[in-house]
């Protein structure tokens, strides 16, 4: 009875069209990384050379470093595939597998969130942790639970920060000469002084405009908010990412930071702006929180995921001792991707009905509780230099 063709309905597939399919999505994603990579190269290489602080080979380093990240991931994934698939131990077999597992991406992303003066061997270690441990051991592309790049990043952050700092750290050769930076990125400064004061947090780095352009110290590619916005536009235009995920994530952090500011007596709009423009938030929101494999599939799930990301980022950033919080919160919530996806899929399929009300209210209560905790706790941890007209700072 082999009269059925192998194909199954539908017989039209986007993936069969020449300019569609996962390969194209990943290509567009890489193109989306380009503005950020170029900006990072400009800021940490070209501009510094123009300032006369470094030579030509040092100028090339940021670009080579990022590309090396991608290359090392590729090589490591190739070697891993060779080892775990004895049946396809040939150039062709490994290449075929590599062509559908997009091995460059974790390494590129990882290299982009590391400080400029990270030694290459640290990068290679991170690539190993990200690609081999974070991705291949879970079963390869499509099966990993955690964002591979962030696994690599967190491993390095926990174990090798000292090595990176000893090798030169996060400042490029121009920034290291600026006395007002005092050796701190904006967020490490905040976690150090615990005081919401424009003159202390923003003024040393110029104005918020500098934050927006990205001419502030920080990891290779995380500072350039403008370049990231360009990438965001491209990725949304090409439908690689959902437009609302980064927006909700950044928006949640914005609103929460504002409330925290008000709660600690600093109602100025500069503080939420400072919050979203400093550190890796924008980068994480556009490139990591939208990473398809490790985030929920359905749109409602993405919304819930992004909301919780925002709250946890604020919690980790302002309440724990970690200066960042983006990487931690994304990896933390990666664990909950599957339940969130499942629950929101049910809610979405049924609408808010009796059967789904419990699930929906669990999300709502959890979210509100975390928001309130974040505002009250952070509001009492920070003091504002100027007591604003809304004097609720003293209540907590």
């Amino acid at each position, binding site marked *: 009875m*082999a*009269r*059925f*063709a*192998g*194909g*199954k*309905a*539908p*017989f*039209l*597939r*986007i*993936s*069969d069209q020449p300019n*569609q*399919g*996962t*390969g*194209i*999505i990943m290509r567009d994603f890489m193109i989306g990384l380009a503005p950020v990579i170029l900006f990072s190269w400009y800021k940490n290489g070209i501009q510094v050379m123009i300032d006369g602080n470094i030579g030509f080979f040092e100028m090339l380093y940021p670009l080579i470093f990022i590309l090396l990240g991608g290359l090392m991931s590729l090589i490591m994934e190739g070697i891993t595939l060779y080892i775990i698939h004895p049946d396809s131990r040939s150039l062709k077999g490994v290449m*075929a597998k590599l*062509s*559908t*597992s*997009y091995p460059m991406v974790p390494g590129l992303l990882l290299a982009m969130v590391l400080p400029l003066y990270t030694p290459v061997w640290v990068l290679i270690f991170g690539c190993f942790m990200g690609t081999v441990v974070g991705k291949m051991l879970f079963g*390869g*592309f*499509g*099966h990993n639970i955690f964002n591979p790049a962030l696994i690599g990043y967190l491993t390095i952050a926990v174990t090798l920060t000292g090595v990176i700092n000893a090798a030169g750290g996060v400042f490029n050769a121009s920034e290291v000469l600026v006395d007002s930076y005092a050796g701190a990125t904006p967020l490490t400064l905040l976690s150090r002084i615990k005081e919401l004061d424009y003159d202390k947090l923003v003024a040393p780095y110029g104005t918020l405009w500098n934050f927006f352009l990205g001419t502030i110290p920080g990891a290779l590619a995380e500072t350039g908010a403008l370049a990231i916005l360009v990438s965001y536009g491209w990725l949304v235009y090409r*439908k690689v990412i*959902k437009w609302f995920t980064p927006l909700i994530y950044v928006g949640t952090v914005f609103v929460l930071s504002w409330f925290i500011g008000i709660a600690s007596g600093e109602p100025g709009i500069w503080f939420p702006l400072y919050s979203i423009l400093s550190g890796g938030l924008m980068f994480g929101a556009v490139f990591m929180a939208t990473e*398809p*494999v*490790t*985030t*929920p*599939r*359905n*749109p*409602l*799930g*993405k*919304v819930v995921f992004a909301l919780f990301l925002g709250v946890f980022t604020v919690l980790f950033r302002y309440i724990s001792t970690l200066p960042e919080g983006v990487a931690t919160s994304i990896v933390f919530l990666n664990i909950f991707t599957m339940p969130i*996806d*499942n629950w*929101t*899929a*049910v809610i*979405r*399929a*049924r*609408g*808010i009905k009796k*059967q789904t009300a419990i699930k929906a209210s669990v999300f709502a209560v959890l979210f509100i509780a975390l928001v309130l905790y974040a505002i009250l706790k952070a509001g009492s941890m920070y003091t504002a230099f100027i007591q604003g007209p809304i004097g609720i700072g003293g209540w907590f």
Partner: protein
Amino acid sequence: MLFRKIKGVRIEGNKQMSRCAPLRDYLDPPVVSIPLLQGMSALKPAVEVGANVKIGDIIAYREGFGAMPIHASIAGKVTAIKKVWHASGRMVEAVEIENDHSGALSDSIQPEKNPDGLDKEALIQKMIDAGLSGLGGAGFPTYIKYQTKCPIDTVIINAIECEPYLTCDFLMSIKYPEKLVKGLHYFMKAAGAEKGVIAYKAYNQAVEDAVKPYLERFPGITTFPLKDVYPAGWEKYVTEAVTGKTYPKLPSQVGVIVNNAGTAIAYADMVENNIPLIARNITITGEGITNPQNFYVPFGTKVAELVALCGGYQEGLDPKYAWYIAGGPMTGKAILIDDLVVNDTLGAVIVIPTPKEKLHPECLGCGKCADACPAFLTPTEIKRAYDMKDETAIRNLQADKCIACGLCSYVCPSHIEITDAVVKARDSLKKGA
């Protein structure tokens, strides 16, 4: 609610292939094999081998749910009852009639003297007598829709034909606009509905132009253009677009009945001339056909004949290595031979070369399937639940709401057979229940 507006997906139609050629009648095939299967239920034959039948004579009965008679589509001699290939992909028993080319009509085919004088009961009885089932592709017996207890205020004629490639409803509509409007008129009477709406795709302005002259004669009938998206022809989408109402299970719950354009045209003939359902429109198209066209053919006609009428296969196409997609490209089934017969649900046969096997990546988790799903399901989750055989989860995820429109597979960038998985999950629920 947020994220719960059916958006649909715009699909490259490929309709221009068969659109331009006019609808061609091919009512006198040498032999027909009328399959003894409708929907999921087998028919009980009512004729013996060797009997002579006229057009419109009853040759079988459908029993149980949707019981109604089935009629001979040509006049001639019953030569055999044997298995033929059916569009569902199975071999089924069929009544083979050899055409004597006499064109003799059954006695029951008489012009109705006063069609406007018929009341609701009589109109519904006509549907049963004529064996009218939906020509849209599901083959649902029409009269059951009209026996609903819910009050009906609107009858919508679905001339949308959202599936790519298909053009036969469009061509039928512009060829028989008067019958279309009349059919709707009788449907409205049968349902007791005040309003009738002809829904068509906005770019098919020709439909509106064709029916416009007749609208004045039949009050309460309007036209409604819809966006060119898939699945715009889905009952729920049409109902929501036309009336703004959304229903949980059946359109009659919000006072709406939706019928296919072809059904309406057939119904007009039934009411006025008592002609039972014996023929339908069909699109023969696809990259493998030299000259794609639409036909109006009796049930039981062999598809191979129609392909020959279209000028045969495209040069270079080996018929052995082609797919014959029965039905639309989104919901149909691919069959490996052209030895098919036309039945009431077969709206098209699309011939395409067998696609090359490619290596596709794993699910990337992009969620495009969930975005596209018109029923707001999350296909990835249903697939996961199905893979784990977790029936509770499948039920919680409302897999039974799936309409198998095929959009999730269509949009999947990794070429995953996600529709297939969801449909299987849905069917596993039905079996279990």
